């Protein structure tokens, strides 16, 4: 029933009001005397050499792309799993075909070395 979703939003609203209120309350009572050293980027007391907005390894991008592919597959499996008993042998065979294609892709990705973290 759609009205069953309303309490989720009520709950989120309660939290959404409570958290900024906590921050605001803290702002009223806490001390506030920043100094130059306190405001430096924290690097264990050493002066930072350059900005943190640098480049980082391409592995993170590969993981993100692989995630999208495999997560879509997971999402596709969920409705099938819920209706598994109704679909019977037909559903089983269809999903096995889908999984074989997917596993072939997985093996290819593995063989290409996309899963190696060097």
């Amino acid at each position, binding site marked *: 029933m759609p009205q069953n979703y309303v309490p989720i939003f009520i709950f989120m609203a309660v939290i959404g009001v409570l958290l900024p209120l906590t921050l605001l309350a*803290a702002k009223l009572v806490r*001390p506030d005397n920043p100094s130059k050293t306190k405001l430096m980027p924290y690097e264990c007391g050493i002066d930072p050499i350059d900005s943190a907005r640098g480049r980082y390894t391409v592995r993170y991008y590969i993981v993100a792309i692989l995630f999208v592919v495999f997560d879509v597959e997971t999402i596709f499996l969920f409705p099938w799993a819920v209706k598994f*008993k109704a679909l019977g042998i037909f559903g089983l065979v269809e999903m096995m075909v889908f999984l074989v294609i997917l596993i072939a892709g997985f093996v290819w990705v593995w063989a290409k070395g996309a899963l190696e973290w060097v």
Partner: protein
Amino acid sequence: MPLPLSIFILVSVIKSAIVLGVLLTAVAYTVWLERKVVGHMQNRWGPTRVGPFGLLQPAADGIKFLFKEDLTPPHVYKPLFIAAPMMALIFALTSISVIPFGNSFTFGPFSVPQFLPFHYEMPFHWGGAVIGPYSIPFQITDVNIGLLMILGVTSMGVYGVALAGWSSNNKYSLLGGLRASAQMVSYEIALGLSLVGVLIQSGSFSLRAIVDAQGGHFWGFIPRWNIFHWQFIGFFIYLMAAYAETNRIPFDLPEAETELVAGYHTEYSAMKFAMFFMAEYTNMITVGCVATLLFFGGWHGPLFGPPLVQALLPVFWFAAKIFCFLFLYIWVRGTLPRFRYDQLMSFGWKFLLPLAIANLVATAIFVAW
């Protein structure tokens, strides 16, 4: 008999407040439990000074968080820097709203006294009638896609961590945020696939239906929980993936104190830091709830005693099972060292993912046959 709309909203608000209160208290005392248990494991006492057994320590910590100086350094991107901890905590807390804690609580039917006027939304205008019985579930709301909802909301948690890491404009934070997002998305696949076996067996996304399907016993004494019902491997995949999702030891690479200081929350202090902390422990509790509901029969357990005790025992069993999970979390933290990052990634992609697919295929063939 469905509740009238105004009463429904009132009940939801009251339930939200109760659940939030209980949950945040549970979070505070999980921190206390962790410090105490890890302390004893390392031959220390843990907190002892504030109250008996250090039991007032969470309150003292809360007050201290409130009164600490809260630095917002000039090099951060301020809107996201402030929003990130709140996002992390909001998404962590929201997932609890669809989790059932027990059966429903039934009250009524009542006969309304003759003199009492009632609101027009009621099915009658004046007293003297009989209303009810009303049944209120031990749950903020019962949606029929509860599990999907939890998966969706908890995976939003990665935004809080990733944005905190990026907006801090600090190298440690950036590395922590990157590590956290890569790790959380990698293990999310294994996590999702490990649940498919349970879904095949129970045929529903509704957490209540999944728990109901686990009632009864095998041969009269082994409870019919999913973990004893062919989902043993599924449970362990879920457990390991969930540890990685919550950034806990042995998968706490994003925070790795010895290399990244504190990872994505290096630049955070005071209340904002507390929010990340609370989000982490709330996620632990959510993981415990989901594991209990899907694999350990939810609130099923022996029932005895007078009717009131019988009504409350399921909630007790549910809480007891979650407590066991939290204890396991702490135990693991006191026992295992941290993975290396390449080990973490190859464990998730090359071991857990194929194992989860194999488990799913085996379950499907077994159930069809």
